[in-house]
């Protein structure tokens, strides 16, 4: 089964749905979309099963000039353990979310278009992870960016823009503007990262003369290049990763991206796309291994972002915003891991996070659905009674993300913290603190939404229907059990996941005595449990509605405003100024066109109409000519 089938199926789905929307009445579009993703999933599974030690590399056709070694770069796909894993996550989780969306988006007028975009996203994401060269990866990179742009702005004119009623219409217009802005912001901020990515590629090409990843991996070892060069290249790539994964300082677009439909948030802005940065760094491990400083940067960016996300999540009131900031924070964890060369830990967290964060988002979506687009947690509460199944699923997710033992989050987070501990105690402390905060705000989220008494407006919120429950169930199971893929040795496991991934990415096993391991584990668990208890205590005191740090947190540490005043306003001003300059640059020509410039007046005044004036210029001219000649003669000058 050729690899290109993986992205091909969803793209075919996209083409059909976008070109012939009328061919798909009712929910058939949803089924088609889900089916194409399922097809890719099947392919992925088959390829996974048929996988050998040597990575598969399938070249299709020539594409970019001179960008491989003394040759034109070709479009080709590359399947090793890492990309296989990513493909499985994307298609698997993607398929579940597609199915979920069939019900969730069921009543949306642009149902078909939604699935077209979703398919487009899946296809692009698969290209991203399967790419055998950085430019091709960049195709997927910007492709998913575009998809996310389209999906964030899916309700670009608000959800009832055709409403005849003026009130509704205005509200919807406001919503439309907000959504559109969010989408645009996401794209532009990604572009900033992409520039870094591109510069990284340019530099790599300058250093190694190729952009094909296998070739690079082959040359990096032998080639003698300046250390600074590699470090710089890695930093450039980091910029790209930061942009895509919503890390500091390019993090502010991710919370806004929640303007999109909830499945989009689940698939793109939690499970898959935003982890592309992590993937990029893991994929470029052979470079980062040579660039200790750059790696340190990665780790620190991750740690700080984790902290930032956690702090911002403390006092959010939008059910999805909380999850969004938690995503930022969790991505920070992954960066921390890969920055410390603990790629396996990072990717493992990526996996588990995909499970439980998708789960959380979907259950949040179910709640929003049940409460008719209500998103404020203060207007919820006690949902447990109305939708028990969803509640159970959500609880699994909360426990997983809080890092409670046996749930998947526990294992992955534990590995990361261990890596941090070996590398740098400060990082470890940060990580631990974030774990505490995570547990707290997730607990807050849980208690506000599911416990306490119902504060909503909808009379009888209904439980999600089967189409939504199935994915919830599967994901809940995965979030619960996923951790056992990688049971550390001191718990009697065999690091199955690490060893699998190790075939693609050489491991840097950190030597920690089992006792320390135990200590770290206990600390982590304490942090998790403590956080939840803290939330429960607050809940008892009914003071959960507004969490710690008040405005500072709910305004996400004012980062947006800082950017606005630092970059937004000045650049607009400059643009304005340049425009003015540019319009007036050719005033003279315009003047001539309008036939009104001074010099001409001179000549017309000279042409005064008096014949004697003409005679004056004639004879003076003659006199001057002859006089000049006479003077020259006197001066004896030659001719």
């Amino acid at each position, binding site marked *: 089964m050729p690899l290109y089938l993986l992205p091909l199926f969803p793209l075919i789905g996209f083409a059909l749905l976008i070109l012939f929307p009328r061919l798909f009445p009712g929910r058939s579009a949803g089924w088609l979309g889900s089916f194409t993703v399922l097809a890719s999933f099947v392919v992925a599974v088959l390829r996974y099963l048929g996988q050998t030690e040597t990575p598969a590399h399938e070249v299709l056709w020539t594409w970019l000039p001179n960008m491989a070694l003394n040759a034109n770069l070709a479009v080709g796909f590359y399947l090793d353990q890492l990309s296989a894993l990513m493909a499985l996550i994307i298609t698997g989780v993607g398929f579940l979310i597609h199915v979920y969306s069939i019900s969730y988006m069921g009543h949306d007028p642009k149902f078909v278009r939604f699935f077209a975009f979703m398919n487009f996203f899946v296809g692009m994401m698969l290209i991203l992870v399967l790419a055998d060269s950085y430019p091709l990866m960049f195709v997927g990179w910007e492709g998913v960016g575009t998809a996310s742009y389209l999906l964030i702005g899916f309700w670009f004119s608000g959800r009832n823009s055709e409403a005849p009623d003026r009130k509704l219409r205005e509200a919807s217009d406001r919503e439309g503007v907000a959504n559109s802005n969010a989408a645009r912001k996401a794209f532009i901020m990604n572009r900033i990262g992409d520039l870094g990515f591109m510069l990284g590629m340019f530099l790599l090409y300058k250093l190694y003369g190729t952009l094909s990843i296998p070739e690079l991996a082959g040359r990096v070892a032998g080639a003698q290049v300046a250390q600074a060069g590699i470090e710089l290249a890695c930093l450039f790539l980091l910029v790209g990763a930061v942009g895509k994964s919503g890390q500091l300082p390019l993090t502010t677009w991710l919370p806004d991206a929640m303007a999109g439909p909830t499945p989009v948030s689940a698939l793109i802005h939690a499970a898959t796309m935003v982890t592309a940065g992590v993937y990029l760094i893991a994929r470029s491990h052979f470079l980062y291994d040579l660039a200790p400083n750059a790696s340190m940067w990665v780790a620190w960016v991750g740690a700080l972002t984790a902290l930032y996300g956690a702090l911002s999540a403390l006092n959010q009131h939008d059910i999805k915003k909380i999850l969004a900031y938690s995503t930022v924070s969790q991505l920070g964890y992954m960066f921390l891991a890969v920055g410390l060369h603990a790629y396996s830990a990072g990717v493992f967290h990526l996996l588990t996070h995909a499970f439980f964060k998708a789960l959380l988002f979907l259950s949040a979506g179910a709640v929003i659905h049940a409460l008719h687009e209500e998103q404020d947690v203060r207007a919820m509460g006690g949902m447990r009674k109305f939708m028990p199944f969803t509640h159970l699923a959500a609880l699994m997710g909360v426990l997983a993300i809080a890092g409670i033992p046996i749930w998947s989050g526990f294992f992955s987070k534990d590995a990361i913290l261990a890596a941090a501990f070996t590398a740098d105690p400060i990082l470890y402390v940060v990580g631990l603190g974030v774990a505490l905060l995570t547990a707290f705000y997730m607990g807050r989220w849980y208690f506000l939404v599911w416990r306490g008494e119902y504060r909503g407006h909808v009379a009888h919120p209904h439980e999600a229907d089967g189409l939504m429950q199935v994915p919830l169930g599967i994901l809940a199971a995965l979030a619960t059990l996923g951790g056992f893929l990688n049971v550390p040795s001191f718990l009697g496991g065999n690091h199955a996941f690490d060893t699998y991934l190790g075939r693609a990415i050489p491991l840097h096993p950190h030597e920690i005595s089992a006792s320390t391991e135990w200590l770290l584990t206990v600390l982590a668990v304490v942090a998790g449990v403590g956080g939840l208890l803290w939330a429960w205590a607050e809940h008892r005191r009914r003071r959960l509605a507004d969490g710690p740090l008040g405005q500072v947190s709910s305004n996400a540490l004012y980062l947006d405003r800082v950017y606005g005043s630092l970059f937004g306003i000045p650049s607009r001003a400059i643009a304005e100024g340049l425009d003015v300059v540019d319009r007036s640059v050719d005033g003279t020509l315009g003047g*001539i*066109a309008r*036939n009104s*410039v001074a*010099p*001409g*007046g001179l*000549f*017309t005044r*000279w*042409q005064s*109409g008096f*014949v004697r*004036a*003409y*005679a004056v*210029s*004639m*004879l*003076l*001219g*003659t006199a001057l*000519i*002859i006089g*000049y*000649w*006479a003077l020259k*003669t006197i001066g004896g000058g030659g*001719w």
Partner: protein
Amino acid sequence: MLTVPEVHLAPMLPILIVLAGALASTVLGFFLPRRALTVINLVLLALSGVSMGTLWNSGAAAFGGALQADNAAVLLGLTILLGSAMTLLVSLDTAFRARVSFPEFDAMLMYAVTGTLLIAFSGDLITLLIGLEIMSLSSYVLATLQDSRPAEEAGLKYFLLGAVGSAILIYGIALVYGATGSLNYVGIAERAAGLSPQNLTILVGGALLLLAGFGFKVALAPFHQWTPDVYSGAPTSVSLFLSTVVKVAAFAGMLRVFGGALQNAPGWAPVLQILIAVTLIVGNAASLFQTNFKRMLAYSAVAHTGFLALALLGTPGLGGAAMAYYLLVYTLMTAAAFAIVAALQRSEKGMEISDLRGLYFRHPGYAVALAVCLASLAGLPPFAGFFGKYLVFQAALQGGYVWLSVLAALASVAALVYYLRPAMLMFMPDRTPAREYAYGERPATTFTVALGVIGVTVLGILPNLWYGWVANPAIWGTLAGR
């Protein structure tokens, strides 16, 4: 004992034919209507052209070299005849409206042509002088002939300044004679070579005075100021004549004198290059600010003088060829443009540029033709004006006048601007009522315009049709005669 020199008829036949036309118009004017005379004159012009053609490569001369019918003379003469014929054709349609439709008009015109031919064929300074005077005097009359205040004012200005100009010219001749002791080109050219520095001084002084005198005739700044007034004051058909035939003749004279007799005399080239620079600047800048189309054409004629004179700076081989090519093209496009003005103008003042708005939708043929002429004047390919510019640039560059060529290039940007405005206005639709003469389109004028436009286009696409004839440097090496 008195020995009358050999008098060949052939070399002077073209002139005599034209003269015959002039005399016929003078005498028969009492019996025949004017239009008949015009037709006769057209025929005679054609005949003269034919007889000129027979002189090709004959190198014939008469009156001991005072009259030489070499190839240069033939080429320039043909250009002159073409311009005159176009003038006559246009006058057929417009003379009555201009109130100059009487035999004397034709007579004067033909006399002027006689004079111009005399210049082109001249072999010595005196013949040249007489030719110039015949041409000028008849031009004075032509400019004044119309019974209107503008025409009279134009005539007086033209005459007074012209008289001064000829005085300067004659003084120049005197000095040149003083230096070389000879009045015919060959002698001057021979003696100019080996001169004691003192008399060389006189020679250059004379050359400069001649330059000033000619500068008036061809309208080089600062001797150009009569041009706009006279062209805009005189009847349009006369302006056509003055701006084409008269200018061609004057340049023919310049070619004879500076390209031939004074070819290797020093001193005049640097001055000429200054004059050209001033002309280019003044001509183009001033025409940028004209609102009257006729007057704008007058100024553009000044500007073109600058370009034409560039050719004089080149080596005679290239320069002469460039000049000859440019002169023909210039005649075609200027004549056609003036013809259209003459046909479509409401009043003798010519049309305002703004009147041209939307002309394309009322007189598509003439509008397109005028656009072609303007494009050619601006030097845009594929029209012949481009090759004219190209050739003079080439001549000047190879003469080593780089800065002047650059200046000329920049000047022609300005030129484009003022040619562009009317040209584009014609194609802009407008609601206002037509402001041009409704019955202007008539066969003779149309024929003239077509001649000009087709000529300009064909010569632009196949320049060799004309340039192939004029290219041979041998023609221009012997301007002074043998």
